[in-house]
C-alpha cells in the first residue's frame, strides 16, 4: 500500500472520529434531557406532563422510523441552511446528530425507568424537588445503564458515519466506497473494514469499562 493511501486512510479515520465525537456529544446534550423528560413526564410522575410526553414520544418515534440514509437526504435543505453546504464532515454531523438525539433519548429513558421506585419515594419523603430527584437520584443511579447505552449509541454512530460517506460525507465510509468499490481496490476496502472493527472494539471495551467503574450495585473485591 502506498504512502499516499496510508495518508488517505489516516485522514479518513480522523474525519470519522471527528464526526462521531461531535455528533455523540451533541446527541447526548439533546438526548439526555429529552430521555430524562420522557422517563419522568407520564401522568402522575415527577414532572407529570402527559400531553407533552405524548407529543415528544411521537416525534421521537417518527424520527427513529425514518431509515438513516433517507433522513440524510430528506434534511439536506435544513443541513444547508445550518452549515452552508450539504457535503463534507460538518454537513454530515447534522443528520448524525439528528439521528443520535432520539436514539440516545430512548436509551436514557429506559435506563431511568430501571431505577427502583423506592428511591424516588425516599427522596420525596426527604422533601426533594423533582429536579433534585432527577439530579441527585435518578441520573446517578441510572449511570451504569446510561454509560452502556451511550456506548451502543457511539457504535451505531460509527456505522452511520460510514453511511453518510455514500452521500458526500467524508471519512472511512466515503473512502471505502470511492476507492475500494468504485476504483476496485479491495485492499482499501479491507483496510477500511479492519479500522472500523477496531474502532468499534475500542469503543465497546471503553464503554464497558466505564460502566463497570460507575456500577456500585454489586459488592466489589476491596483487595484485602
Amino acid at each position, binding site marked *: 500500500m502506498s504512502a499516499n493511501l496510508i495518508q488517505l486512510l489516516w485522514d479518513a479515520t480522523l474525519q470519522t472520529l471527528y464526526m462521531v465525537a461531535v455528533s455523540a456529544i451533541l446527541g447526548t446534550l439533546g438526548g439526555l434531557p429529552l430521555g430524562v423528560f420522557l422517563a419522568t413526564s407520564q401522568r402522575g410522575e415527577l414532572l407529570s406532563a402527559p400531553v407533552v410526553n405524548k407529543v415528544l414520544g411521537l416525534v421521537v418515534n417518527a424520527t427513529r422510523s425514518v431509515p438513516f440514509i433517507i433522513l440524510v437526504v430528506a434534511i439536506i435543505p435544513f443541513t444547508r441552511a445550518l452549515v452552508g453546504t450539504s457535503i463534507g464532515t460538518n454537513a454530515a454531523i447534522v443528520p448524525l446528530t439528528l439521528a443520535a438525539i432520539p436514539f440516545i433519548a430512548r436509551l436514557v429513558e429506559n435506563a431511568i425507568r430501571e431505577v427502583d421506585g*423506592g428511591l424516588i419515594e*425516599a427522596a420525596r*419523603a*426527604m*422533601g426533594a424537588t423533582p429536579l433534585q430527584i432527577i439530579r441527585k437520584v435518578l441520573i*446517578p*443511579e441510572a449511570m451504569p445503564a446510561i454509560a452502556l447505552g451511550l456506548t451502543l449509541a457511539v457504535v451505531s454512530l460509527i456505522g452511520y458515519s460510514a453511511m453518510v460517506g455514500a452521500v458526500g460525507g467524508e471519512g472511512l465510509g466515503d473512502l471505502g466506497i470511492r476507492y475500494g468499490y468504485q476504483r476496485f481496490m479491495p485492499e482499501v476496502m479491507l483496510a477500511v473494514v479492519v479500522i472500523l472493527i477496531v474502532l468499534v472494539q475500542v469503543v465497546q471495551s471503553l464503554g464497558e469499562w466505564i460502566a463497570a467503574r460507575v456500577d*456500585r450495585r454489586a*459488592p466489589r473485591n476491596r483487595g484485602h
Partner: protein
Amino acid sequence: MTGTEQGAAITFESVGKSFTKAGGDPVMALADIDLTVPQGSITGIIGRSGAGKSTLLRMVNGLERPTEGRVLVAGHDVGRARGPQLRAIRREVGMIFQHFNLLSSRTVRGNIALPLEIAGTPAAQIRPRVDDLIEQVGLSALRDRYPAELSGGQKQRVGIARALATNPKVLLSDEATSALDPETTQTVLELLGQINRDLGLTVLLITHEMAVLRDVASHMAVIEGGRIVEAGPTYDVFRKPAHPTTRSFLSGVTGATLPGFIAGRLLPERPDGPSQEVIRVTFAGQHATDPMLARLATDLGIAANILSGNIEEVGPHPFGNLLLSLDADRGAEARAYLERHGLTTEVLGHVR
C-alpha cells in the same frame, strides 16, 4: 384550629381515602380513621397486608393525600400543604423503609448526606453532621462502603441515620424490620427505642408482627379493612384485646395457643354431663408473678390443668398468658376468684 390535642405529634381526624380506578367505582382504602399519636411515643399500627396501614403511614408525610378528613403533624395540615410548604413538613418527618431504599451509587456517608444536600445545608456543615450520625448508629468503620457491601441490619442503620439527618420530630417506619432476621430485628428495634428515648423523637411504625409492638411500642392500633378496630396503650391492648383481629394477632405472639387435640374438641356451649371449661388467664403487672394456681388449689380446692402458657415482657411490664382447663361446675367460682386478684379471664369453650 380544633381537635389538636395537647401533646399529640400526629392527629388523624376522620380520615378517609378512596382511589378511583379508571372506568371503575372508587375503591375505599381507609375510612373513619381517628387516631392520635402521642408526642414522644412509639406508636405501632398492625394489620395484614392490604389493610391500609401503608397508605395511613404515607399520609403523615404527604406521599398520599386523604380524600376526607385531615392529618395534622405538629399542627400542620399535611393533606393541604403543597410545594415548598409540603417539603418543609417532610424535612420534619424522617422515614425508613422495608427495603432500605439506599442509593447504590453513594457510600454510607453519601447516603446520609443526601437529605442535608436536599435541604440546602452548606457543605461545611454536612460533613461533621454526617460523621456524628454515623457514630450514633455505630457504623464508623463502614463510612466509605457502598450499600452493596453491607448486611441488611447495617443498611437499615444507614437508613435510620439518613432519616435523622435533618433533625426530624417524627420518624416513620414502614415495615423497617420485615426484611431482617430475628436477631438483627432486635438490634434495630433497640436502636429505635434508644433514639426515641435520647432524642424524644415520636416514632410511628407499621408492621404485621405483634412481636415488634410488644418489644418497642408504647401505643398501638389495629387496622383491618381500612378501619382502626382497636387502639390504646400497648399494655392495655395486650391485656384486654377486644377485637377478634387483635386476638388473632396476639395468639401468634403470646404463646397462648391451644394444643391441637384440645382445639379440635372445643365446644362453644357447655355440653350435658361432666365437662371441663377452657379459660384464658392473663396475668398483668404486679400479679404476673404471683403463684395464683397454687392459691386456687389451696383456697378453693380447685385443680386446674395447664394447657399452654408463657410469661414475657410488654414494654417494661411482665405479661403472662395461661390457658387452663378446670371442672366446668366450678368455673364461674374460679374465674371470680382470679378476677378478684387482678387477673383477666376469658372463657374459650368447653371440652367433654
